[in-house]
């Protein structure tokens, strides 16, 4: 395993403006330590991502930064306000799209936005204009006067993002903005987020457990069991994981493992579905010499560039989306669908 230190790179703290500063944050619920002594900064105008499996502590951290939960210990500042002292100033400067839906589905899209705009004291004269502006951004302008209960899941999610923007927050938090949506809708939501960053003076803090999605971030923190395992740009994280991933299925995997060990000093073991998986620096050089003397019959061989998934696997020793996690998530989505009836 690669030394974790290599992964931590907070950037040059003095050069760039920090908008969120988290130092030694700990959050305990009775006997669970949900967040276990984490420290990181988020810089102005970046997209910062939290990537981690179910129960890693992502939502808990967001709730603390957004003043919805008190920290057990540590300091958290947003826009230079302390979460314990200046709650209302922080609430004023953030937009938050919660992991679970929080729309009033008995109101129309416009009424939901109007409610929000009034609570955040958007000037009366501006409200109409801004409602149209944010609805336009998420392609819902035509549905302005429709009841939210008649919206699809993806439309609701987009409306929530629009709502989070209507008071022009300094930081927009998106807790799993694409959870439970089909790939097409997911792509569209990511397009909005990228557009947002391009067009507005805004910092985006998002969480996800989809690897591909976290690659749109400027920087990613990989979080697992309440700890930050790595923090860097997606490119650097992949670079450090480096190398190519080779997956082989052979007639005799244990002999194959021996062969790899003796001839190439590669220590590996059998992964799921009877594959043998390992990393090499350069697969195009490795494969020819490997094939030449290989003592077992190869059924399949596959080489690919490493992804963040591999980084995650490397750091935490587990897949970010194992079977358990995804079935748990499905249950959550179903439970939510039932609630929304």
């Amino acid at each position: 395993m690669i030394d974790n230190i290599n992964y931590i790179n907070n950037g040059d703290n003095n050069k760039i403006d920090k908008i969120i500063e988290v130092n030694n944050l700990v959050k305990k619920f009775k006997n669970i330590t949900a967040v276990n002594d984490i420290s990181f900064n988020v810089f102005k105008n970046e997209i910062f991502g939290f990537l981690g499996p179910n129960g890693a502590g992502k939502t808990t951290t967001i709730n603390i930064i957004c003043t919805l939960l008190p920290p057990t210990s540590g300091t958290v500042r947003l826009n230079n306000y302390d979460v314990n002292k200046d709650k209302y100033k922080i609430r004023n400067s953030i937009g938050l799209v919660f992991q679970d839906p929080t729309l009033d589905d008995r109101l129309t899209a416009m009424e939901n936005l109007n409610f929000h705009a009034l609570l955040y004291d958007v000037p009366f004269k501006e409200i109409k204009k801004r409602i149209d502006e944010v609805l336009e951004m998420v392609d819902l302008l035509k549905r302005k006067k429709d009841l939210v209960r008649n919206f699809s899941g993806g439309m609701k999610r987009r409306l929530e993002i629009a709502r989070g923007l209507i008071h022009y927050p300094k930081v927009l938090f998106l807790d799993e903005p694409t959870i439970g949506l089909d790939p097409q809708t997911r792509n569209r939501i990511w397009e909005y987020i990228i557009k947002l960053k391009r067009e507005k003076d805004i910092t985006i803090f998002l969480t996800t457990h989809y690897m591909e999605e976290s690659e749109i971030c400027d920087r990613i923190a990989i979080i697992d069991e309440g700890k930050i395992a790595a923090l860097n740009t997606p490119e650097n994280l992949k670079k450090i994981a480096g190398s190519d991933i080779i997956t082989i299925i052979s007639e005799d995997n244990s002999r194959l493992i021996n062969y790899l060990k003796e001839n190439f000093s590669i220590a590996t073991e059998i992964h799921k579905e009877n594959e043998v998986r390992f990393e090499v620096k350069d697969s195009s050089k490795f494969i020819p010499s490997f094939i030449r003397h290989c003592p077992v019959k190869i059924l399949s061989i596959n080489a690919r560039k490493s992804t963040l998934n591999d980084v995650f696997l490397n750091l935490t020793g587990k897949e970010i989306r194992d079977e358990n996690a995804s079935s748990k998530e499905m249950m959550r989505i179903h439970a939510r669908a039932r609630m929304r009836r």
Partner: protein
Amino acid sequence: MRKELLGVYTIWLRDIKKFFRDRPRIIGSIAQPALFLFVLGSGLASSFQLFGGGGGQQFLAFMFPGIISMTVLFTAFFSAMSIVWDREFGFLKEVLVSPISRTSIVVGKNLGGSTVAMIQGLIILAFAPIVKININIISILKLVPATFLAAMAVSSFGIALAAKLKSMQAFQVLTNFILMPMFFLSGALFPLTNAPQWLKFLARINPLSYSVDMLRTIIIGKNITQLHPLNIDILVTLGITAVMSAIGIILFNLQD
């Protein structure tokens, strides 16, 4: 301050909008009291006749303010409980993360629920001629603040409870074991004047009995079933509203 008032207004407005949008609810709010008044009320009144009591018409006149009280009290209580609903469906989080103080949220919710309850209570006045009760403009002018006050008392009580409730099931339990007994002992459906001492005692410590008594005295004037002088009813109801609102505000602020 302006911001907080705006917040109160926003929260209030949502309840009002949702009320006027909800046709089944409006129809129900007329149909249910009508059912109580004409089916239960007339049935009971005629059964008194059967047992030789007479006074059937007087009983209907007695029951009419009781039905208005019932509507006001239940509407106010359920409106307050919509906080639990909002918590379960997530909308409460949207409100709690906004830069509006917890106090304004509680006040806005209370005013919203009370306004709706007042409107529903006043709608029922339309049945007055059918039970042969004279309602003049003066009594309507008195009833507007009176129903609102009665609603505020229950609503603030409901909000204080809702601060602690995490599920709709808990709410069902509360309705059955707290609200219903309080309602039965409020004098809304049967007079407590002749009741045994222990029942009278329970009625006296039951906050709802003061609101019911207040509304009844305003609607049918001085009557044999009256429990307290009107000003006592008003003072006690005001007192309950103040104490319960304070508790609700404190509980919500503590959770912040």
